[in-house]
């Protein structure tokens, strides 16, 4: 039988992995909806409303999954990790409270108006509600990433009798890794949404949907991805340098660097072996890791063996990092390849449609892998240098944790399948709807012209 600590870790990892899938979509999709809505308000062209109405359904479904999986998290702090709040509750508590007060209520309340209020409230209020939902999801991300970053790079506090007390709230909120992690996550969300929108739009076009809305959303998503992907690589690099400064053992695990050395090679791939502290079958580029991380060919990088028992397990961090980078590179190449073709010919090849459909959820893979790097890379600490994970765990019997873990895993598997199937079903159903809904209130008089010609957007 596995012990309560390991089971609780698996359960928390399962919950938070499942949860993060949905906010990753809603954070950026909220802003995309604001864009569609504002373009509709300005141009009065119904194609923007078509795009809005399709994606607002996806938003609603995704948001619901995010809310219910998020409620689970708020319980698990207390049920499985009582030591966390006992030790750092004075800092984590206010941050969580501010997240609920400033973000959760705002997004949940405005969501009702955004989803069902188009015909019931004034136009400006509906657009404002859309904007406030997007603001709310971003604010949630802000607060939770403040807390997560503080757990990685804790500052602005002092320990009294084994309990952390806040001394400087500004330092806590803008802790050293926060700006990098927050930006990295916002861009991850944006890229995830770009590929989701591109994938679903490609699916509709590939299936013979000849309407303007999917063409428009495909173009918006691909061109955005082509700009966002290289920017994200740059931000990721800055984030890596920040991690090297504050959590060198995490970087050592990411790079598969067992021993401190000058002019460390970049390990493209290998199989880390904790027993012998070497990488088997390693493919390396000499001195490149030192060059990237220290900007010197002979720069010194710390190895895992320097950190005794205070370093993370190498293999999962090493593999996750490679999955994240590889997925990111694939996304960048596909975005450029398809954008170029779309720019020149205004149409994609069947192969490109298929690739985009296949990569609809590539953002999830990269985001999850990235979170595994940073969260497993923080081990054995829960709060870096302050609280170890095994000091925070509950005393609930392992049988109970095993039981709830199985229930959650089954439920999550079913919901994930249902979610993905429903998205494609929504896309399939959208193929058959009329091009424009010309009964929308507030449209200009030239309705017939729009319906026959379509406007140039």
């Amino acid at each position: 039988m596995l012990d309560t600590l390991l089971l609780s870790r698996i359960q928390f990892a399962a919950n938070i992995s499942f949860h993060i899938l949905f906010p990753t979509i809603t954070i950026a999709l909220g802003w995309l909806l604001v864009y569609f809505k504002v373009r509709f308000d300005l141009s009065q062209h119904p194609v923007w409303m078509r795009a809005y109405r399709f994606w607002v359904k996806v938003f609603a479904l995704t948001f619901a999954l995010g809310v219910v999986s998020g409620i689970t998290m708020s319980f698990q702090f207390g049920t499985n990790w009582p030591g966390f709040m006992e030790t750092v509750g004075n800092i984590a508590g206010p941050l969580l409270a501010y997240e609920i007060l400033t973000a959760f209520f705002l997004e949940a309340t405005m969501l009702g108006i955004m989803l069902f209020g188009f015909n019931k409230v004034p136009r400006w209020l509906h657009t404002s509600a859309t904007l406030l939902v997007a603001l709310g999801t971003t604010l949630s991300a802000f607060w939770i990433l403040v807390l997560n970053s503080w757990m990685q790079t804790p500052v602005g506090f002092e320990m009294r009798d084994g309990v952390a007390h806040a001394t400087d709230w500004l330092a806590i909120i803008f802790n050293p890794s926060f700006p990098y992690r927050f930006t990295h996550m916002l861009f991850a969300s944006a890229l995830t949404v770009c590929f989701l929108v591109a994938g679903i739009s490609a699916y509709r076009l590939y299936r013979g949907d000849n309407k303007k809305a999917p063409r428009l959303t495909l173009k918006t998503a691909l061109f955005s991805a082509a700009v966002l992907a290289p920017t994200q690589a740059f931000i990721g690099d800055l984030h890596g340098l920040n991690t090297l400064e504050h959590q060198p053992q995490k970087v050592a695990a990411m790079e598969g660097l067992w021993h401190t050395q000058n002019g460390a090679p970049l390990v493209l791939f290998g199989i880390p072996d904790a027993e012998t502290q070497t990488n088997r079958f390693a493919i390396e580029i000499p001195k490149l890791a030192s060059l990237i991380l220290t900007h010197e060919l002979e720069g010194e990088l710390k190895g895992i063996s320097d950190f005794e028992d205070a370093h993370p397990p190498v293999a999962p961090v090493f593999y996750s990092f490679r999955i994240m980078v590889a997925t990111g590179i694939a996304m960048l190449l596909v975005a450029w390849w398809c954008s170029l073709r779309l720019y020149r010919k205004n149409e994609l090849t069947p192969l490109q449609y298929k690739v985009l459909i296949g990569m609809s959820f590539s953002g999830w893979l990269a985001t999850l892998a990235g979170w595994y790097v940073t969260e497993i890379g923080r081990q054995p600490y829960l709060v870096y240098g302050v609280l170890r994970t095994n000091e925070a765990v509950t005393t609930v019997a392992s049988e109970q944790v095993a039981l709830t873990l199985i229930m959650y895993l089954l439920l999550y598997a079913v919901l994930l399948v249902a979610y993905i199937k429903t998205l494609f079903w929504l896309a399939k159903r959208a193929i058959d709807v009329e091009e424009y809904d010309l009964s929308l209130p507030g449209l200009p008089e030239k309705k017939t012209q729009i319906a026959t010609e379509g406007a140039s957007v």
Partner: protein
Amino acid sequence: MSLLTAENLALVFAALTALAVLLYAILDGYDLGVGITLPMKQEAWRDTSIASIGPFWDANETWLVLAVGLLLVAFPAAHSAILHALYLPAALLLIGLILRGVAFDFRAKVKPERKIHWDWTFKCGSLLATFSQGFMLGIYVMGLEYHLGSVIFACFSGLCVTAAYAMIGNAWLIGKTTGDLQLHAIRQCKRAGVWTFAGILTVSAINPLVNANVYQVWTEPPLAYLFAAIPLLCFAMFALGYLALKRLPLPNDQGAWIPFFICKVIFVCSFAGLALSFYPFVVPNQMTLYEAASSKESLTIIFFGAVIVIPIIAAYTAVAYYAFRGKADGLKYY
């Protein structure tokens, strides 16, 4: 600033947490109630019932996050003691909430032939959530201990809380619907009201017998005379509700919101009764709210945030309820 002593802050946060729990019970109560009594025979009724709660359920559930969150940040020791003891029922509650929350959205978006499955998921998820909540309340009242008596009591409490939610849910539907569905809701509301009444009577009788200090609170003059107003008001409301339900529906739909208002008063009375019974304990007979409170500095920080933000939350919640006033119609996604 001098008013913000550690003791006052603990009291303020206990009051805030209690307020969040009460608002959760009333608000998510009505949408859970609509869920558990969802009429499975008529699809049109289901669509209207669910449309009546569609714009609100999400914000309603946020009060649970706030309640658990406030307990977590203001009384961390109590949070872990309570949830430690309620580990399994809390997990079942969460599974119920997950199922019903997603069913809500899936039912409107899946293939038409699958819709009925998600409607059942919605109904059963709601039922699982309300029963778990009642069960948790029962175990809490019994001092967070598990033995044959407390489990039987908790199961009974699960049924009563389910009945209370069914009552307030159907009272909401009376206000939000017309015609046959409204008549159906009136019948269901009556039936659930009888069970709720029986439940409140039983809990009121058992609670002072099990907990000595609860007995003391309700029998020691002079305050006991004052406190007696709470059960009297509660029982008067049941009588009034019975009369109202007998006469509804009236021409021009007059008084359709009276049952919902009465249910709210009943919820407030029951909650006040429980809160008075247990004060100052936050974990019954084990831990007072003063012992469980976290440090003064962090409570002060949250206090100022709450003072500024809660009126704003109330304001935009009012906007949402105003926007969706009147009878529920077929909601369309836009």
